[in-house]
């Protein structure tokens, strides 16, 4: 377990072993020391101090009172700018607070800053940000590593212990893969569990908010705080949110785990196959029944994802046109020129690439062959899972096909970069909850992650399996 624990800190605050001010000043110090990691797009000590002042005046009991949390800079926040790591929103100050961050504020948490990400959450290395790369805190000197992406800033913030938890968003693996790369816990809940209201959209049918934390218990506390129905999001689910933390149960005796054969992919490093086997062995020892399952359409998941997500993105990002807010080019002799120059200068390469892909797959004459077909395959992928979950309670796979790679390794090879999402994308397409927990290391002593997938809205089972594996690993 990492040295920090939200749960332990809450106890320490409660017993006055430490004050809110002392706790957060400690974190402020660490944040300033680690500036070189480029974790934050926005950080203001003054703002943090103001929040401490306000909380000190507040006598009410709050669940997360004084807990330092980092916010992915895709969540709109009133007190801090929101950029989505894009030049086009460089100076954007929302007048509204996202559903998820409002919930965290209501519970008394302190926002330490807005974390770096791939521009509009498009990427797997936090290297498409307009504000530069984030460096994985686990990098050795002279060999900077990628933190994964797109929520690389949030994963790094937790890994470098700059906060006690962080929000992320996961569209195709953007929480789970960086969690794996940075050796922290990251959960993407079921699509619809957390409202998308106030989250800058990438791909609406896939985007889902989630949590990074130092351990599974902390994740279970934080997810409970940000989940819930919101009538402002038509895709938000009306379900009861159990108290995951209080219900945590690491006794998996009698449960069945599904091991999908399609996740054994040629070229996967030995160490990854090894930790997968290790995890299965651990579960077996705990009395879990091992069930080999098949998810036959897995191989189509990546191409399906890279049609649907860009298609939605191409439309979602149309609003950044220089008319109403955000960046507007100076070279504007006509309306068309304003659009062209604003978007050409305001968006980075990866975002443009995906807008082009998305525009193409939705075009007249191509729609049926790409978008419509992708939607059909998406349904098949979801059906695979539904069938599999009739035979098992949860599924265990590796999170990513590699450990953290050097910072600029895949910069110019988008396809290679997209392959990073191979294990995470299927669950995203099916809308299922998935968690990544650190489980073992590679030969360079870099952390590797195990992914646990559950049934729709069965986050509790995901947490139970995760906490069980986590406790046995220590």
């Amino acid at each position, binding site marked *: 377990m990492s040295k920090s624990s939200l749960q332990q800190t809450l106890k320490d605050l409660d017993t006055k072993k430490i004050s809110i001010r002392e706790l957060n000043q400690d974190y402020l110090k660490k944040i300033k020391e680690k500036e070189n990691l480029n974790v934050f797009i926005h950080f203001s000590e003054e703002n943090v101090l103001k929040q401490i002042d306000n909380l000190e005046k507040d006598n009410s009991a709050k669940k997360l009172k004084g807990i330092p949390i980092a916010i992915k800079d895709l*969540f*709109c926040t009133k007190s801090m700018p*929101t950029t*989505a790591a894009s030049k086009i*929103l460089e100076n*954007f100050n*929302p*007048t*509204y607070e*996202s559903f998820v961050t409002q919930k965290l504020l209501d519970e008394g948490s302190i926002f330490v800053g807005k974390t770096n990400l791939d521009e509009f959450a498009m990427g797997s290395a936090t290297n498409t940000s307009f504000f530069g790369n984030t460096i994985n805190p686990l990098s050795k000197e002279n060999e900077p590593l990628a933190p994964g992406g797109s929520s690389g800033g949030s994963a790094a913030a937790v890994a470098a212990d700059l906060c006690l938890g962080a929000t992320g968003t996961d569209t195709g693996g953007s929480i789970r893969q960086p969690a794996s790369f940075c050796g922290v816990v990251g959960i993407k809940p079921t699509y619809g569990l957390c409202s*998308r*209201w*106030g*989250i*800058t*959209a990438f*791909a*609406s*049918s896939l985007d889902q908010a989630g949590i990074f934390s130092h351990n599974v218990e902390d994740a279970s506390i934080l997810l409970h705080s940000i989940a819930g129905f919101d*009538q*402002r*999001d*038509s*895709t938000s689910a009306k379900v009861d949110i159990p108290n995951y933390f209080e219900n945590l149960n690491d006794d998996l005796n009698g449960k069945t785990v599904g091991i999908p054969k399609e996740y054994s992919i040629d070229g996967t490093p030995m160490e990854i196959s090894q930790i997968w086997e290790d995890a299965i062995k651990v579960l077996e020892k705990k009395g879990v029944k091992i069930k080999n399952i098949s998810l036959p359409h897995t191989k189509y998941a990546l191409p399906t994802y890279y049609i649907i997500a860009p*298609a*939605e993105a*191409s*439309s979602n*990002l*149309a*609003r950044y*046109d220089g*008319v*109403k*807010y955000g960046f507007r080019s100076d070279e504007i002799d006509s*309306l068309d020129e304003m*659009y062209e120059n604003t978007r050409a200068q305001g968006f980075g390469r990866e975002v443009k690439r995906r807008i082009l892909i998305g*525009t193409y797959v*939705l*075009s*007249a004459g191509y*729609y049926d062959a790409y*978008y419509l077909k992708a939607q059909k395959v998406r349904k098949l992928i979801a059906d695979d899972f539904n069938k599999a979950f009739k035979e098992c309670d949860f599924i265990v796979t590796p999170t990513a096909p590699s450990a953290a790679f050097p910072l600029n390794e895949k910069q110019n090879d988008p396809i290679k970069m997209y392959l990073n999402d191979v294990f995470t994308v299927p669950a995203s397409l099916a809308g299922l909850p998935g968690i990544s927990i650190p489980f073992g290391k590679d030969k360079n002593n870099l952390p590797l992650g195990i992914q646990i997938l559950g049934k729709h809205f069965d986050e509790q089972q995901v947490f139970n399996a995760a906490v069980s594996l986590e406790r046995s690993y220590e």
Partner: protein
Amino acid sequence: MNNLIKGEKHDWEMVIGLEIHAQVKSNSKLFSSSSTKFGSSPNSQVSLVDAAMPGMLPVINKYCVEQAIKTGVGLNAKINNYSVFDRKNYFYADLPQGYQISQYKYPIVGEGKVTIDFKDGTSKDIRIVRLHLEQDAGKSLHDQNPSKTYVDLNRSGVALMEIVSEPDIRTPDEAGMYISKIRSILMYLDTCDGNMQEGSLRADVNISVRKPGDEYGTRCEIKNLNSIKFIKQAINYEAKRQIEILESGGSIEQNTMLFNTSTGKTRPMRNKEEAHDYRYFPDPDLLPLEISKEEIGKIKSSIPELPDELKNKFIETYKLSNYDASVLTAEKQTSDYFNETINSDPELKNHAKIVVNWITSELFSLLNKNNQDLNNSPVSPENLGQLIKLISTNEISGKIAKDVLEDMFSSGKTARQIVDEKGLQQVTDQGEIAKVIDEVIAENPKIVEQYLAGKDKLLGFFVGQAMKLTKGKANPKMLNDILKQKLNKKN
């Protein structure tokens, strides 16, 4: 009926279809809670959703959905239990999202039909292809500043119903009657205020021409017409333009046209190659719209009497002609007024045709002359009823009644008051009338002679003189009868 138009070389037939955009009558927008009030100061009714701020999401306004279903029922159309909102993607300054939320493959309302009635008593069905819900765009204001365009987003996100007809319309008049009928239905249902001047109801016209019996020709679409007059003008101009091209050996390019209301001409806005690829796809922010049979049934049962039902009722109950009944029911305020008038006195039910005439010719022309509307008519239905009662019971003559109505209109007095005050009661005393006639005959011996010599037309002269003496109050029938009697006695 001949609907053909003459070209230089031969006859042509117009083929016309309309896409009507009707603003849904609702307090708030289709996907946000901002107000839809017309004429507010620019950008005062814009929510975060309407302005497409990052992370904002649409939430369907259930009332607008109900309004669309109601309208569908009024168009005798199939209500779809399952429909989907799609995004129609294009860039424009007054389209903040960069897409319009509309319905493409699965509209909320399917096939239906409306009937239009001609003066000669015949009627015709115009088939409806579909009705779907969509968002309106904002407004670009190009004329406020020489070098700038301003954008007003008050209208952005307001709910529209797009009602698409089959190309069943053959003349500009039919197009006018069709849109009037749709307008009438919407206003009866209270699903659209029907105000064409404010843009609550506007139409795109698709038109092509062909030789009778041929396949459909290539069509052009004239965008955004907001009056029936302009619709007819635009169709006439565009049909002529197409015929000229075809007759001189050219072919029609499938264009989107704009109509210039001051020149009365159409001009191309964009051709097929320049046409947008809207990249429709289901809006992932919204769930498909599922409406249960129970909900549809509930809405159906809440629907008021529609013009066609009312028309048939009027024909049956009051033995009115199809045309009279359709004029009465074209606007809800007219049929309401008629109902109130005819129900104001049991006697009037036997004089329905007279009631119709007094409303649709006498009262309408007074209202027109004074630029007033039936809704704020100075003559109430009860008062008009009273006037008609006075006519039907021979208390006053029809001719005098016209003057009385004018007096009622300007003074606000009741018919009875005016008739009493001015002593306008018809003279129905035989003796009194006979006395006047005797006077007239005595004073005009020469003319009596001429009449008796065979100049029958001179009867009118005696009638006129007698009326003059009675100040128009003599009962015309009695006057005629007695006059003839007396003159013939002289023979």
